[in-house]
């Protein structure tokens, strides 16, 4: 092929790519495209194989190195298990009591969401493209389902490709979560700060905010259920004229994630979302 034809091919390929790119920009929900799903279906099993291989190698190494430590850890975990069993018993009693009181007050309790387990097969938390690829297996997963870890919120599903799903992590610059501060119940919006941390925006200067305050999901964005820990306040500065400038440390250590849980809570119906978006005060 001569140089002129090669140039035309280059322009055609580049044009197609730019067109595909520009079609995604106005889509805030970031719907998945066919090539992306196909790519994830192909790369997902490879990532899983590498992950399993690395797990196996490190577990063999660890088992040789930490045999004595494991015995001690086992003993400690046994005692912790006993303590937690007692704690569960105590909480069950409290739960029963709360249930009885709620029934007496005719208060409809919010049902707990189901959780589906997913294995993390690929995670990139350090570069500016913060991604997590998880293997969900046969569980039904949909876009915008919340993803959590035992320590707190991880993010939301943005792409589903067969048994694999791509998760937008909460520390991503483009992610935003409605949240509230635990002691004051002031609400704001949590965003990634671009350096692996989080920012809490739109909290009024009048609100009392202290370092160490917990920040939880507010449950008003139609994606994340209420009450999931997002992080803790690490600094509070006077921001602009109206709002604090608050930074948070994420509740989850993303570098150590091996399994996550996908929340199967009923999401806000699309019609309701559209109605509320178009609503006027």
């Amino acid at each position, binding site marked *: *092929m001569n*140089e002129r034809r*090669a140039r035309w*091919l*280059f322009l055609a*390929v*580049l044009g197609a*790519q*730019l067109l*595909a*790119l520009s079609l*995604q*920009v106005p889509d805030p929900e*970031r719907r998945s*495209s066919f*090539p*992306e799903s196909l*790519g*994830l279906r*192909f*790369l997902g099993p*490879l*990532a899983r194989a*590498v*992950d399993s*291989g*690395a797990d196996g190698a490190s577990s063999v190494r660890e088992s040789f190195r930490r045999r004595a430590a494991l015995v001690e850890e086992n003993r400690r975990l046994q005692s912790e298990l006993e303590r937690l069993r007692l704690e569960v018993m105590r909480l069950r009693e409290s739960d029963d009591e709360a249930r009885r009181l709620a029934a007496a007050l005719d208060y409809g309790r919010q049902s707990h969401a189901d959780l589906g387990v997913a294995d993390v097969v*690929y*995670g*990139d938390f*350090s*570069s*500016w*493209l*913060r*991604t997590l*690829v998880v293997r969900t297996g046969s569980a039904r997963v949909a876009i915008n389902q919340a993803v959590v870890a035992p320590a707190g919120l991880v993010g939301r599903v*943005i792409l589903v490709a067969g048994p694999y799903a*791509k998760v*937008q*992590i909460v520390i*991503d*610059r*483009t992610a935003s979560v409605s949240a509230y501060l635990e002691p004051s119940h002031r609400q704001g919006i949590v965003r*990634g700060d*671009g350096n692996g941390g989080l920012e809490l925006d739109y909290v009024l200067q009048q609100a009392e905010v202290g370092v160490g305050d917990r920040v939880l999901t507010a449950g008003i964005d139609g994606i994340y259920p209420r009450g999931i820990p997002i992080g803790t306040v690490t600094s509070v500065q006077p921001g602009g004229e109206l709002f604090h400038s608050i930074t948070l440390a994420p509740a989850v250590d993303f*570098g150590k994630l091996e399994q996550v849980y996908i929340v199967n809570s009923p999401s806000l119906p699309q019609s309701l979302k559209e109605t509320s978006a178009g609503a006027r005060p």
Partner: protein
Amino acid sequence: MRVLRFSIGLLVALLVHLAGMRLVPHFSLAVDVFLVVLVTKALDGDVVAAIVAGAVVGLFQDTLGGTLYGMFGVADTIVAYATALLAQKVVIQRMSGVVLAFVAAAATQQALLALLAFVLFPDPELPRVGWVALRIAVTALLGGVVFIASRQWRQRYDSWRRNRTARVHFG
């Protein structure tokens, strides 16, 4: 044969990337193994093959990345095309020249990604300059080593084939 070689290189890069991500913190910030394969391919000077390779490698990176699908595709296609054109016009033989080509390719890729981020996102998050410099340096060094090694391997392979053919004809 060239397609097979490129496919094997891409597969190896993918495995190295996945293993690196699993074992080394900040691996993806420090090195771009996909770019090594891409530039090595583009330095052959075949423009069409380079364009296709750029699109394919870019799609791989886009699949693993969390940003808009196609950003790496655009950047890698341009880098591959430019590198192939350069390889057609300039004979790059020495290690220093190869490393320089990799430096230029890695820097161009990062600049294009930053440009696309500025155009497509209202408040783009960009990597730190220190990390970008490290990524360019490590990618260039690795690229230099891989390119020289693959050229030597190819020369040995060609010589082995010639000898084998000679034996078949005259032995």
